[in-house]
Structures are given as C-alpha cells and as structure tokens.
C-alpha cells in the first residue's frame, strides 16, 4: 500500500472515460507527476463543481487525493482553456486530439515525471488554439519534437547512420531519418529536398521557414512524420487517420 495523502500539481487533460453513474476517470499529463489517472466524482452532473474544467485540452491546477488504487481529484482551477478555441474548428480539433494521444502514448509509465513532454504539449496546444499557424503544421511539429523528447530524434540533414554531413536525398524511418547513399537500407524513400528542410524547420521551431513551404511538401512531411511516429509506437494512433489535413 502506497502513502496516502494530498498533492497539488498542474496538468493538461488528455482523455476522459466514463465511470459508473456520474463519474469520470481523467487521464492527465502533469508537470511534476508525469501521466496520472484520477477519478473526478460527479463530473457528469450538470451541477458539478468541476464544470468544463476537466474536459480534454484543459490546462488546470489540481488538488488530488492519493487513493489506494486510483487518485481522486478534489479541486480543479483552470489555468488556460484551449478546448473552446480548438473545438471551434474541426481541423484543429482532430489535430489537437492526435497531439493528446501522442503525449499519452509517449509517456508510457504512469507517475514518471515528464516535464519536457508537459511543456511541449502546453506550448503546442497554445499555438494550435491561437490559430496563427495551420493546424496540420502544428501537429507535425509536435510529432517530430515529441519523438525527439522521447529519445527518438530523427535526423533530417546529416546521415542518421554514419553522421556524414547532409543534406541527403534518402529517408528511411527504421534507420532514423535521412541517410547517405552508402548507408541507405533497401526500401528507403526519396522525398523532395524541400520536405526535409520543412521537417527540420518544424523540429527547430523555425515557423518562418515552415510557413513559407508549399502544400505538396507539407503533405509529404506529414506522411513522413506520421510514419516515423507509427514506427516508434508499437500500435498505431487511433486519431491520426481521422486528422483533417488542410
């Protein structure tokens, strides 16, 4: 039996599941406790004190009671309400959901601190809600950066195998990104040079360069980023095929 007590943390709601008559199990990515699951009692009633605070995309300050099997949310205060603005646009909603699912899957262990993942998700949702960048680009930037934080950083310039300085014209998901002609494994693809430049810009956060890219290169970059993610996750993301690419 673990220690029983209260703790306070801030987190982003990733997913909610119905539990019993009026409760929900809330999956959150928190700043200090990593990914946690906690019960919000009575949250589905119209008069619940939580209201919309424990809906997906919400950034909340929480007080949680550490239970024996599942923790229980005692209080929740909103820090930022991204859900409203993300939901107002269907493309943004589908991209945002894929971001939440990615964050959940890449933080595989519960209660293991994942500060970088948390900060990346908050930043990603803020950018998505602002609407200044296309939703599809924000999602792809989030995917390549999350993988980098998880230790699967792809190389978009130098050869991922022998580190020979790039740019190179071959790309192989299993090999870790761009590969030189000598290292190229069979089945490598040859994306446009601009696509690799775009992916590199998304990884480093160069929005000016990413924003100047053409639609066909964006489509190709999305395909590569998704393939790279699916390769590193054992099961595919459910939400990714439903993302509406602009």
């Amino acid at each position, binding site marked *: 039996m673990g220690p029983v007590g209260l703790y306070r943390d801030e987190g982003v709601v990733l*997913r909610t599941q119905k539990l*019993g*008559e009026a409760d929900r199990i809330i999956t959150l990515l928190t700043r200090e406790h990593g990914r946690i699951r906690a019960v919000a009692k009575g949250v589905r009633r*119209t*008069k619940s*004190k*939580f*209201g*919309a*605070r424990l*809906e*997906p*995309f919400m950034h909340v300050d929480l007080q949680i009671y550490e239970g024996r099997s599942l923790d229980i949310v005692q209080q929740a205060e*909103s820090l930022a*309400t991204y*859900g*409203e603005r993300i*939901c*107002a*646009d*269907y493309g943004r*909603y*589908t991209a945002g*959901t*894929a971001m*939440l*699912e990615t964050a959940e899957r890449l933080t595989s262990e519960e209660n293991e601190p994942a500060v970088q993942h948390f900060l990346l998700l908050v930043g990603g949702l803020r950018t998505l809600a602002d609407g200044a960048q296309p939703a599809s680009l924000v999602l792809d930037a989030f995917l390549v950066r999350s993988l980098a934080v998880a230790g699967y950083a792809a190389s978009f310039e130098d050869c991922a195998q022998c580190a020979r300085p790039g740019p190179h014209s071959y790309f192989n998901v299993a090999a870790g990104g761009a590969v030189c002609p000598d290292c190229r494994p069979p089945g490598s693809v040859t994306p446009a040079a601009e696509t690799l430049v775009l992916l590199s810009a998304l990884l480093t956060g160069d929005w000016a360069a990413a924003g100047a890219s053409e639609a066909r290169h964006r489509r190709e970059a999305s395909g590569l980023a998704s393939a790279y993610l699916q390769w590193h996750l054992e099961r595919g993301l*459910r*939400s990714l*095929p*439903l*993302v509406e690419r602009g």
Partner: protein
Amino acid sequence: MYEGVVQDLIDELGRLPGVGPKGAQRIAFHLLAADPTDVRRLVLALTEVKEKVRFCKICGNVAEDELCRICRDPRRDVAVICVVEESKDVVAIEKTREYRGRYHVLGGAISPIEGIGPDDLRVKELMTRLADGEITELILATDPNLEGEATATYLARLVKPMGLRVTRLASGLPVGGDLEYADEVTLGRAFEGRRLLDV
C-alpha cells in the same frame, strides 16, 4: 463460489453496467426468493426487448415498429430536426414538452481518440434527410462537452452550403446553482448568451 446455475446468474448479472460482484449476488438472491410470476414477467420483458425493439428507419431512435412513435406522429413539425447523440437524449428533451419537431439520433459523438469518426455515426442518413428540402431548421443538441461541441461544429460546417437555419442549444448556468462555483467556460457562455430582461 456457488453451485452451477446460481453462480451463472451471478456472473451474468455482474456483467451489467454499474453492478459489482456483491450487487450481482444480492440481485441473484432476491430473484431466488421472489415470486415466480414476478420473475417470469422480468424474463418476458428481457426477451421482448431483444425481439421487438429495433431502430427507427428515419431517425435511428429505438422503436417497436419500422418507425418510432415520434416519426409516426403526424402532429409533429416535419420542418425541424433536433440532432442528439443517443436515444436517452430524446427522452430527456421530450420531458421538457418544449419541442414539437422530429429527431435524429447520431449514435454517439466524433471522438478521434476512441477511433470514432463521422463515418461511424449516422451522419450520411442525416444528410439524406436534409436533402429533400422539407427541413428549414436543424437544432444541434449534442452533449455540451468537448466531443459534442466538435460534432456540432463538424455538422454545422457540413450543412452550411444547404442554407438551413442551424441552431445550437444554449449553454450556461444550471438552475439552482451558485454563480461562484461556475467554471470559466460555462460562465463565459452564459455571458455570451445573456438575454434582455423585459419587465
């Protein structure tokens, strides 16, 4: 563990939503002690519900015939459709006695994280109903949560070219609550939808 059929009954009851192992045991022993006529009535109700109930061909609501009671009723306004997620929502709205139009049950809400997209809901059937030109207003009454809002946004965008009047149920403060406990989103919506008090 109990013997044979008693344990089978407890196991089956335990599979129902909200019924735990203790509850299942309690119901099983209640049934054992109950009058045989009462038990037979329960058995009949269970058999009939599976045999007779199907989904209305027009709106997707539960029905005993090809069409549900509401779609069969000639007094209902055919020009208005209220879109809901589940049949349970139809019952909730009917209780208000405020609405006289017809319904369309989607069978859920768009939830990419659960792998549910527009193709998994009765969206195509709704579009077919709207295409006949009889409908003038579409009321989006999906749940006021994230998935429900996203589903409403999706549908509103989809039917926009048809030039219908598309409305969404109002969100705001629950009757009988305290203002200070309202969350920012709900209170914000209540402000957005405030109305003129003409006394």
